[in-house]
């Protein structure tokens, strides 16, 4: 099974600033997918962004983008112009449904 490591249990960002959440993974596959999910307080987990490993271009969804470094097996999430509604647990996940320990993001007004 693929494994996922998130080394930042908690992160904090000022509203309107940029924050980067880190994720590393381990896989023996050559083609695979990576995901970032968001779990707002007391709400359901939802997808933030998805990246296919063979695509060179980093995925982007509005204010959310990834920095995918295949050789380093690194998959970080950048949130630009942070908003109060971005406060949540963020989980990095692989295509074989394995998740990291999560990063709790706090957004300060």
């Amino acid at each position, binding site marked *: 099974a693929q494994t996922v490591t998130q080394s930042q249990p908690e992160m904090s960002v000022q509203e309107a600033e940029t924050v980067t959440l880190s994720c590393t993974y381990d896989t023996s596959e050559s083609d695979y*997918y990576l995901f970032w999910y968001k779990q707002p307080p007391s*709400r359901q*987990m939802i997808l933030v962004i*998805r990246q296919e490993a063979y695509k060179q271009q980093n995925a982007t969804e509005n204010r959310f983008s990834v920095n995918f470094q295949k050789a380093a097996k690194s998959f970080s999430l950048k949130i630009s112009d942070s908003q109060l509604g971005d406060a949540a647990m963020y989980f990095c996940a*692989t295509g074989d*449904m394995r*998740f990291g320990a999560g990063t709790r993001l706090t957004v300060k007004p």
Partner: protein
Amino acid sequence: DVKVTQSSRYLVKRTGEKVFLECVQDMDHENMFWYRQDPGLGLRLIYFSYDVKMKEKGDIPEGYSVSREKKERFSLILESASTNQTSMYLCASSPLGGRGANVLTFGAGSRLTVL
């Protein structure tokens, strides 16, 4: 607009009780999953199923079993609940295939406390 429904949001059970956690999805998804979520450990895969009456062990199946008699329903069973099974349980589903590209749709979670 509810797509994955977990029948109980909060449960309190006693040690040794048999516990059923039910999950129903209305998206005609083939794949269904059960995770437990614990602080500092993230989501850990307990069991998953790719089809009716099929099941596969995840990373932490000990102390759990599952049942999938109908495509839309996937039940997690704790045969004899123990205090170390106190946790948040998340059900998820996804369509078949996609070579690992499929996005999971999650339920709201069931918080189980075993006394």
